[in-house]
């Protein structure tokens, strides 16, 4: 043994002469300048990165999944075995020689092609006898050895200097230096083998050698890639001279403000003024509750003279059911609550879907302000059965919940919300790994399913090892297996439906639920990993279990020792040092208030996409954890900050800032909010008071194609970009503007109907108040008006008595339409309606209910003149309301 050791070292010394704890100050450029060098480069450390630098494994070149010219490299590198094999083995099938020729190294295609000594579609990539050439030649001459990932030192980290770049003037540039650190303590300057990228090359350009050049003022990051190291370096150039010590005194009452201003100070950006009360109220109403303030609410807030009225308003809003509904909608976006993916998960009884349970379950917990980690644990480690419940008990309870007149609610009776695991697009281990990382961690690991993640450290091996958590967990079972199978069989025997399958069974179950029977339900349950089973089971839905799985960026878990492999995942998410769980949520909440996340896009917490303000993100995430994942703490922390309450009106220095929160950014109201705002702004005051949260679009449980095609809400919500909850991306929801949205607001029959409605319409109510009732309508009445009216009313009554909901509704619609055309003004005064008595008052009301502020004198004059000049005053008022609904100020949250 003793004799082996020196020999072993000699071998290592021969093949890897430069490693073993030493530091290589000189780069490969110098070391391989001369063809005489004896140094043997390493496949992982030198050859692969250099090929990446030369562009060989680009997507359009050999990195393509089909390869190029019969030669394929792994996209973005890191599949060493494949890359080595493709270089050193001949392609028998296509009769192509290997890319390296060990006998005659100079004749290797690997050097002949990129130097254009042989035709190369990819053009010339390097010169003969330069360092790149010498490096490849020395590797081939030494036998073109692959890396031994087990034995060789591991990559530890990449150290890049300088750690931050602040440019002051034109024509400045800074050279980056990157040192790779390996687990044996060796260090090497690898700058010439790194890949560089600027996140905004308008602000900082970076060339292929790592030279950063100053651009426009602002801030961004340049990113350095080597092996699986990804290091972002902040680069900024102050926007004004007022930076650093010359920065003016700025109000920063909260920690959030101090952290924001700390960054703004470096950039020379001065925040905007504090927003006016009306501006603040509208903004905070929309952001916290997804609704507009009512006219009365605006007036009372403006009249309140106390100092703490904003803080009180924030607290008040956090207690409303609208807050719970709106943030539940956002959590449903994240978790993918979509009917289309829940087909047949529960029997279809009336209008109740699994998506309804999903929404209500979360809604109740948001309302109760259950800590975020507990709420999510109820989804992550969900089982359909409550603890200790037998399959039979479970079915009894669920059948009871699903009876039309049930007093038992899913949200209250069920401990967990299992449908997340029943989603049709969440069944394979890969889908689950990707979806899980998206929902709970805000990262996109799908790239690593097929190749090294281009913007993060994840390799295909990481992906695979993480996916192992999902190979055997949480089966979704249409019918139970194991012990419960007996209970299932007994149940279907009792019900006499043993022979029924598929659609026939599905049609039968709702009937039986209605008839008070207990029917079988599908269930989600943890499946104990069975790693000894090496054969693929008969059931295709149960893949072979894995013995070990690895948390992303953390330790390996032995799955054979646990009964539910989701538990270690949840424990890991809850750890204080978990880099994703709390951050992903606070960042998404922040994005809800500021239009952009601290990390943006908010669902891309990758290394190459660093936060615009690291200290701020850390503060919020740590605070959230320290406050026991209290969601309302987070909302208060953000909404009470001066940063949130700044005006949208920019100043010269912050006019172009969109990522450092120096002013509020005008953004379009989200789809549901816009839809509800239209309803509310066109409703009479008494009608507004009657709007129930459940009838608002912010409380619609499901998304998906089926609900998109449903009724009038569907079209509007679709064109305004409600989340489709389909593809593991926050971009499933969009707040872009579009032509169809504008056409909808300007001229759609649905919007016109909202404005012109008699029942509950604001226009109708003010017309009555002003005595401008619809004389025209009465004049146009047909002679048999009374008779028709009576018969229409009789029909409604008849159907209602017969208990036929559908027909009653249809008859009511007909009656309403008729009344609208010819009816009386319908001006039975509703209680609580304040009568308006002047055009002035009407205009004020119109402003308060749409843009939630008083009109200016100019606006008052213009609108008054318009109404006065209208032949029919009601038409004039209608046009004013229409115009206000079509201002940018209405559809935009500012």
């Amino acid at each position: 043994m003793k004799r082996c050791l020196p020999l072993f070292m000699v071998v290592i010394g021969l093949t890897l002469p430069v490693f073993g704890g030493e530091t290589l100050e000189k780069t490969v450029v110098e070391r391989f300048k001369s063809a005489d060098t004896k140094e043997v480069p390493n496949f992982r450390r030198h050859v692969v990165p250099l090929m990446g630098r030369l562009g060989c494994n680009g997507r359009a070149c050999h990195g393509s999944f089909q390869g190029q010219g019969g030669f394929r490299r792994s996209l973005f590198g890191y599949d060493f075995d494949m890359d080595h094999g493709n270089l050193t083995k001949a392609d028998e099938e296509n009769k192509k020689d290997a890319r390296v020729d060990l006998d005659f190294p100079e004749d290797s295609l690997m050097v002949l092609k990129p130097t254009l000594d042989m035709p190369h579609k990819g053009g010339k990539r390097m010169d003969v006898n330069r360092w790149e050439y010498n490096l490849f030649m020395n590797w081939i001459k030494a036998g073109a050895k692959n890396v031994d990932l087990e034995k060789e030192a591991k990559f530890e980290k990449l150290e890049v200097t300088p750690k931050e770049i602040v440019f002051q003037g034109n024509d400045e540039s800074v050279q980056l230096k990157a040192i790779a650190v390996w687990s044996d303590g060796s260090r090497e300057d690898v700058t010439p083998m790194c890949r560089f990228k600027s996140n905004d090359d308008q602000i900082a350009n970076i060339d292929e050698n790592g030279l950063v050049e100053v651009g426009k003022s602002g801030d961004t990051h340049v990113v350095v890639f080597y092996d699986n190291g990804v290091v972002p370096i902040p680069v900024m150039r102050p926007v004004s001279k007022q930076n650093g010590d010359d920065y003016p005194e700025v109000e920063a009452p909260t920690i959030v403000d101090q952290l924001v201003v700390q960054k703004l100070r470096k950039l020379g950006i001065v925040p905007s003024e504090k927003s006016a009360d009306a501006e603040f109220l509208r903004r905070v109403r929309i952001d916290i509750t997804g609704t507009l303030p009512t006219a009365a609410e605006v007036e009372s807030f403006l009249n309140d003279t106390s100092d703490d009225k904003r803080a009180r308003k924030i607290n008040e809003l956090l207690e409303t059911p609208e807050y719970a509904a709106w943030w539940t909608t956002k959590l449903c976006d994240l978790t993918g609550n979509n009917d289309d993916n829940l087909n047949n998960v529960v029997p279809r009884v009336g209008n109740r879907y699994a998506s309804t349970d999903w929404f209500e379950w979360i809604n109740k917990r948001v309302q109760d302000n259950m800590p975020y980690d507990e709420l999510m644990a109820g989804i992550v480690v969900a089982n359909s059965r409550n603890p200790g419940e037998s399959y039979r008990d479970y079915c009894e309870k669920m059948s009871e919940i699903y009876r039309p007149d049930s007093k038992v609610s899913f949200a209250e009776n069920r401990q967990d919300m299992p449908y997340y695991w029943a989603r049709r697009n969440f069944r394979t281990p890969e889908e689950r790994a990707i979806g899980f990382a998206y929902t709970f961690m805000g990262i996109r690991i799908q790239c690593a399913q097929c190749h090294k993640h281009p913007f993060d450290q994840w390799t295909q091996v990481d992906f695979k090892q993480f996916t192992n958590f999902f190979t055997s967990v949480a089966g979704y079972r249409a019918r139970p297996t194991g012990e419960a199978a007996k209970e299932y069989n007994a149940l279907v025997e009792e019900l006499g439906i043993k022979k029924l399958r598929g659609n026939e069974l599905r049609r039968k179950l709702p009937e039986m639920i209605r008839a008070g029977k207990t029917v079988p339900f599908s269930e989600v349950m943890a499946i104990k990993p069975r790693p000894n089973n090496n054969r693929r089971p008969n059931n295709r839905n149960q893949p072979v279990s894995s013995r070990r799985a690895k948390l992303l960026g953390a330790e390996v878990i032995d799955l054979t020792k646990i009964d539910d492999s989701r538990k270690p995942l949840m424990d890991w998410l809850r750890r204080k040092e978990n880099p994703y769980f709390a951050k992903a949520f606070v960042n998404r909440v922040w994005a809800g208030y500021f239009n952009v996340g601290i990390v943006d896009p908010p669902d891309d917490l990758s290394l190459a996409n660093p936060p615009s303000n690291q200290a701020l993100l850390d503060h919020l995430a740590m605070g959230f954890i320290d406050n026991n994942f209290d969601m309302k703490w987070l909302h208060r922390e953000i909404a009470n900050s001066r940063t949130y309450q700044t005006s949208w009106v920019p100043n010269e220095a912050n006019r172009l800032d969109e990522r450092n929160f120096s002013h509020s950014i005008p953004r379009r109201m989200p789809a549901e909010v816009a839809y509800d705002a239209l309803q509310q702004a066109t409703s009479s005051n008494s009608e507004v008071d009657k709007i129930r949260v459940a009838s608002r679009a912010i409380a619609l449980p499901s998304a998906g194609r089926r609900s998109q095609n449903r009724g009038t809400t569907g079209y509007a919500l679709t064109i305004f970009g409600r989340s489709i909850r389909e593809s593991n991306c926050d971009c499933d929801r969009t707040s872009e503007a579009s032509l169809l949205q504008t056409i909808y607001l300007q001229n759609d029959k649905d919007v016109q109907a909202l404005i012109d409605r008699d029942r509950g319409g604001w226009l109708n109510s003010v017309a009555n108040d002003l005595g401008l009732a619809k004389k025209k309508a009465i004049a146009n009445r047909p002679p048999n008006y009374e008779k028709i009216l009576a018969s229409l009313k009789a029909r409604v009554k008849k159907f209602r008595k017969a208990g036929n909901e559908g027909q009653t509704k249809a008859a009511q619609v007909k009656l309403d339409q008729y009344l609208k055309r010819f009816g009386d003004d319908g001006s039975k005064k509703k209680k609580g309606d304040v009568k308006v008595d002047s055009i002035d008052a009407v205009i004020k009301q119109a402003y308060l209910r749409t843009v939630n502020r008083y009109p200016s004198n100019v606006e008052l004059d213009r609108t008054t003149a318009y109404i006065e000049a209208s032949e029919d005053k009601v038409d004039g008022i209608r046009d004013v309301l229409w115009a206000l609904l079509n201002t940018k100020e209405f559809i935009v949250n500012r």
Partner: protein
Amino acid sequence: MTLHKTCDGVKRRDMMKLGVLGSMSLTLPKFLRMAHAGEVNDAPAKSAIFINLPGGPSHMDSFDLKPNAGEDYRGEFNPIKTNVDGIEISEHLPKLAQTMDKFVILRGVTHTLAAHRLGQEYVNAGTKPLPSLEYPGYGSVVTKELGSPKDLPPFVAIPNTNQRPGFLGVKYAALNTGGSPQPGRPFSVRGIALNNGQTVEQVQKRQGLLKDLDATFSGFEKNNQLLDGLDQFSQQAYAMITSKRARAAFDISKESPAFTKKFGTQVFDQSCLLATRLVESGVRFVTLTLGGWDTHRDNWNRLSERNLPQLDSGLSSLLVGLEEKGLLESTAVFVTGEFGRTPKINRERGGRDHYPRCMFMLLAGGGVRGGQVIGESNENATLPASKGYSPDDVAASFYHNMGIDHTKEYHTATGRPIMIVRDGTVIPELFS
């Protein structure tokens, strides 16, 4: 029964005459060489009409009959001759038989998604649906690539469509008319039509008011993409609502009686009439829908009494109408359902069930040379006779017909590069 039929309803000797029919003798490289030499019609179509047949039309009872198949497969209908020698289609499509020279039947198109929704997503986007990404439908891609006049909506769906803008974003969504036109009745398109007796003058007047009131962000619009965009869309919407051309485009009563007479009086006929009118006005992409093809039960009665006659009447008038207006050369027509139906009859229910492995699609217009059958199915129409075509191939061909390079890459919001059609190859015979 006529003699000497091959399994695809084409007489043997006609194979010779038609040359490339059903074979792969014209290869893509050869085709590209021919295209380069100006030997094929390569003038791209400028607009398109996509007819969706949701439910999945039975290929064996419409465009891919197997009269000699056993009774478990054959079905009740007989083939009839068309105006192209050697091509035969169902007896319930007599009008289309007389317009066979204007369109191409693709037989033996094949895929594997037997669920309605997934199949619909597939045939409306030309790329197999993925759980992690929503692909844009044809209409969204075409309008993104080719644009549209300022005062017309670029992409109109009558009454709605399964083609979604996907990762291209809501900008490229279809304008859903929400209803379908009916003869002798005024047809109002949501958002375009002036409702409640409004006049253009009134619209202009209120627009003046809007311009004055919409001043809060004055001077700051250029700093913010959203505000700037809203202004542009507002102008465009106004131009559209007040445009005579836009309203006239949707008003089928403005069509000459002589032309209108060609079209039947059913909803689908009138939708076809509207589609020709929209295309003539400059609308880039129109989708139509004719549903009811999910004939698990009572297949032959439903097809012969309702579906086939409707399709026959509407589509034949559409093709004739387009040609008469000189629009067929500049309008790509694409007709497809999400799958075919089981060749083996479901006796218990008198129907056929979902079957994606063998189906038909129809193409016409633009550079497509009508009067051909391309591809073939096997003996019992259970599979393509040879390799068959995928929906991706048809998609690539359709885009080719519109002058769009189907290998062009878009970037999703996550920065991922996605080809318009990744796995498709243009079918050269279409354009030869």
